[in-house]
């Protein structure tokens, strides 16, 4: 290196190096914690794809009344169990032809469906359009999942905070309550609650929300205990800030990543719970569609009309997969140490 440098007398002139201020400057632009996490999330291709898949599914769910080709609850027994068909039936898999007693025939013609009318994913045993039911079912599942997750956040976060912040006797009692609730499998708790309430959307949301908050409360409690001994919390306490103010100004902002990650992890569980409850027949009451009721209906005729099971299955798996992948991506982004 040194050989190809031209050494002149000027080389040994002192470089003006007295100004020390610039030495202390940090060279890279500083990023806030959230900016940094978002940057990391964007680098995770799988999570980005999951995000866009979800965005599309949520958009379809929101626009269900506009997008759905038929009314999801209109029955037409004459058109029952029609196979999938698009347009005039030229696309393989969507021909409108089905097998009855070993003979393949055009089911649409056999049922006397007028030309030009078709059901993209076929119809169910009551002649309802499967695609529309799936769209509405997805809408309902997503809504229930989000509402239940919000509900469990609203109980779980304050519960954990209070338990840890008050400590001592309060903490013991509150933890005992958690232990008692978690001594019964949470789906059974949800089932018992559903038995008491009138069947319906609100009951399901409450039942699922009520069983989901325990994980959140435990995490928040542990996190609060940890933060409590931090200097800045002690300082705030010494300065006489109220507990409520400390909770909102210091504790919750510092726990936001835990809250976000856990919420994202709870959503697929809530989707599963809703589907499970509807599947065993105590969830969303008929005639409304939810992914669980669609799966339960589909399963009954699976061997003969598999499409009625396949399509709802594919949608629920895609939905849960996308949420799980995004949740994993968020966890990696917000908690780089834990790495998956």
């Amino acid at each position, binding site marked *: 290196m040194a050989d190809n440098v031209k050494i002149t007398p000027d080389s040994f002139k002192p470089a003006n190096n007295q100004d020390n201020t610039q030495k202390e400057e940090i060279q890279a632009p500083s990023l806030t914690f959230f900016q940094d996490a978002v940057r990391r999330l964007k680098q995770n291709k799988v999570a980005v794809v999951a995000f866009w898949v979800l965005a599309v599914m949520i958009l379809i769910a929101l626009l269900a009344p506009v997008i759905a080709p038929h009314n999801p609850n209109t029955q037409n027994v004459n058109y029952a169990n029609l196979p999938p068909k698009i347009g005039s039936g030229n696309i393989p898999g969507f021909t409108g032809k089905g097998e009855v007693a070993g003979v393949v025939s055009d089911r649409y013609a056999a049922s006397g469906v007028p030309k030009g009318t078709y059901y993209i994913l076929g119809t169910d045993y009551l002649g309802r359009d499967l695609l529309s039911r799936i769209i509405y079912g997805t809408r309902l599942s997503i809504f229930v999942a989000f509402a239940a997750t919000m509900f469990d956040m609203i109980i779980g976060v304050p519960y954990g905070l209070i338990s840890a912040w008050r400590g001592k006797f309060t903490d013991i009692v509150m*933890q005992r309550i958690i*232990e*008692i609730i978690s*001594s*019964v*499998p*949470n*789906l*059974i708790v949800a*089932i*018992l609650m559903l*038995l*008491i309430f*009138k069947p319906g959307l609100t009951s399901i949301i409450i039942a699922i929300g009520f069983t989901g908050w325990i994980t959140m409360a*435990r995490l928040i409690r542990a996190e609060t205990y940890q933060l409590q001994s931090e200097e800045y919390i002690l300082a705030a306490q010494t300065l006489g800030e109220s507990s409520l103010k400390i909770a909102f100004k210091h504790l919750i902002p510092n726990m936001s990543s835990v809250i976000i990650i856990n919420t994202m992890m709870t959503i*697929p569980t809530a989707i*599963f719970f809703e*589907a*499970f409850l509807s*599947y*065993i*027949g*105590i969830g969303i009451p008929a005639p409304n569609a939810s992914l669980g009721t669609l*799966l339960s209906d589909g*399963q009954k005729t*699976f*061997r003969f009309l*598999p499409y009625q*099971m396949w399509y709802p*299955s594919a949608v*629920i*798996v895609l939905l*849960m*997969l996308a949420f*799980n*992948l995004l949740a*994993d991506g968020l966890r990696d982004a917000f908690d780089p140490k*834990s*790495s*998956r």
Partner: protein
Amino acid sequence: MTKYILKRIAWIFITLWIVATITFFLMKLLPGTPYTNQAKLSADQIRIMNEQYGLNKPLFTQYWVYIVGLLHGDLGTSFQFNNQPVTYLISNRIGPSMQIGAQAMIIGTLLGILLGAIAAVKQRTWVDSVATFFAIVGRSIPNFVFAVILQFFLAFKLKIFPIALWDGFSSSILPSIALAMAPLADTARFMRTEMVDVLSSDYIELARSKGLSSWQTVAKHALRNSLIPVVTIIGPMAVALMTGSMVIENIFSIPGIGEQFVKSILTNDYPTIMGLTILYSAALLVIYLVVDILYGIIDPRIRLSTTGGKE
């Protein structure tokens, strides 16, 4: 240690009493009667039946009778199923459920640990990506969907296994696999996280510096240290198996308690619902205790304290 265990056992009984009390009064709040699903009955018949089940007595007397019965191992009489005692119903049906649950747990934990360990050792390679993706897919397929798919392909199309018939080991395979899916995925994920953590620890580097090969390091140091925390997911896994069995047993027509529970719910059979809830709760509490004791035994750092509970 003994003192700690005794204390925990006492707490289990208290918890069970609370669970029993809450479920008892919840059941009393239920709309609908056990007779709604049966043929129309005259007022007289209902009165006779109420007397027969003791439903005409004051609420607290009913509660007292129930709790005393509970202490004697009597869970009451089913409203449905030919008025059999609930304990008889359960003892007749618990065998298949236990068998499937145990098989599922073995499949789930062993394969999950293997998958998670491989993913961690090969972290940030395609092997890891495949294993991790598989675990996430496993978590994303609802077990009842997975069960139906298995049934369709392996039993209905390929006829490798019976479709739905409880007849010995071969009929237990598909339900066990269907039930094992979620625990497998969760174990794999948990194992991977633990193992990645352990593999980056100082004592692993020290083990490598001794001249152990990477596989020796994994076998002698990493595996053991990452397996200890994995014990803790046995509790949540038991929960998943219990609830999973409800739909799986239904799909495969297995005469187990999960299927019984769903039937009882759909027919308002309170005594059976209560009995099974208490049974599930008792099983879960015992599992939690066993896990805690096990944890204390295999982790030399933990000495079970006599003062406080867990957490």
